[in-house]
């Protein structure tokens, strides 16, 4: 556990989630980043159970969640309802906002300042 906030990135495709995680690792070596993509059997989709498990497995109390498309959001919201973690869900451009968040968490920029920057990347309802 390196930072106060951990990041959870959820995509419909496993390669996208893992690819994004790889990108984020470049700028955020000390931030815990967990990537969940696709369904259990490797198909395109999102899997509530794996999202829930990943969310609850953070050592950090605070988890910031980023997603690609709508059903990933619905599954994240379901997981949040039964999680003890303090989860914040971002309706922002997936790659850009996750990258911004990762680099700023790594740089110990204050939470509020990061959120303000992420607000500008809000593209989903």
């Amino acid at each position, binding site marked *: 556990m390196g930072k106060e906030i951990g990041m959870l990135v959820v995509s419909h495709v496993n390669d996208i989630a893992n690819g994004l995680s790889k990108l984020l690792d470049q700028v955020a070596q000390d931030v815990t980043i967990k990537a969940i993509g696709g*369904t*259990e059997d490797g198909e395109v*989709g*999102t899997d*509530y159970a794996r999202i829930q498990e990943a969310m609850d497995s953070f050592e950090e109390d605070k988890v910031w969640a980023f997603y690609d498309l*709508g*059903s990933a959001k*619905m*599954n994240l919201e*379901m997981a949040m309802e039964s999680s003890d973690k303090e989860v914040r869900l971002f309706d922002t451009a997936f790659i850009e906002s996750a990258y911004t968040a990762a680099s700023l968490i790594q740089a110990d920029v204050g939470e509020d300042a990061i959120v303000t920057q992420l607000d500008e990347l809000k593209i989903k309802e």
Partner: protein
Amino acid sequence: MVEIESLKKWIELYGEKVTENKEHLNQLDSDIGDGDHGSNLTRGAAAVKEKVSESEYENLSDFFKDIGMTLVSKVGGASGPLYGSAFISMAKQAKESDDLAVLLEAGLDGIQKRGKAEAGEKTMVDEWIPVVEALKENNLTNKVIEDSLQKTKDMKATKGRASYLGDRSIGHIDPGAQSSAYLFESLLEAGVLNG
């Protein structure tokens, strides 16, 4: 009051219907979405069948909860959390009521809470709302189910993946409304309302 045995029959018939109509649901979904609605629900139905067939239920709530939790995990697409939320919401309601209209209304609330859809946005909600209304009046028929389904054709999608298409979504039946219609047709066929 509803019996678990007839509800099991209902869910079994529903699984058969989505499986038989997998390609039709996929086609409706490729017209205005991503083309996997039939495949996703078929996968979910198989998982539900396995789960439910190996379990004995003493109460409605446990039965609905098993279905809901299986759907959210196994379906994959947006229909997973939506149908899953419906059944999980029905599971909660079943602790207080065994009236089908009350239960399905709770299911509808679960869907709307999860998907944030209102009437007229060309979603499964446009099938659920008239069906729940008809159930409350003891008046659910295949005609209510079919008429509500056909009405989604002229709607313009403003929620979900189909909303990306804007006006081009008009003229297509909503796939979620179609699979919901199968759910309610199965309800009539299973004789749940006669019990």
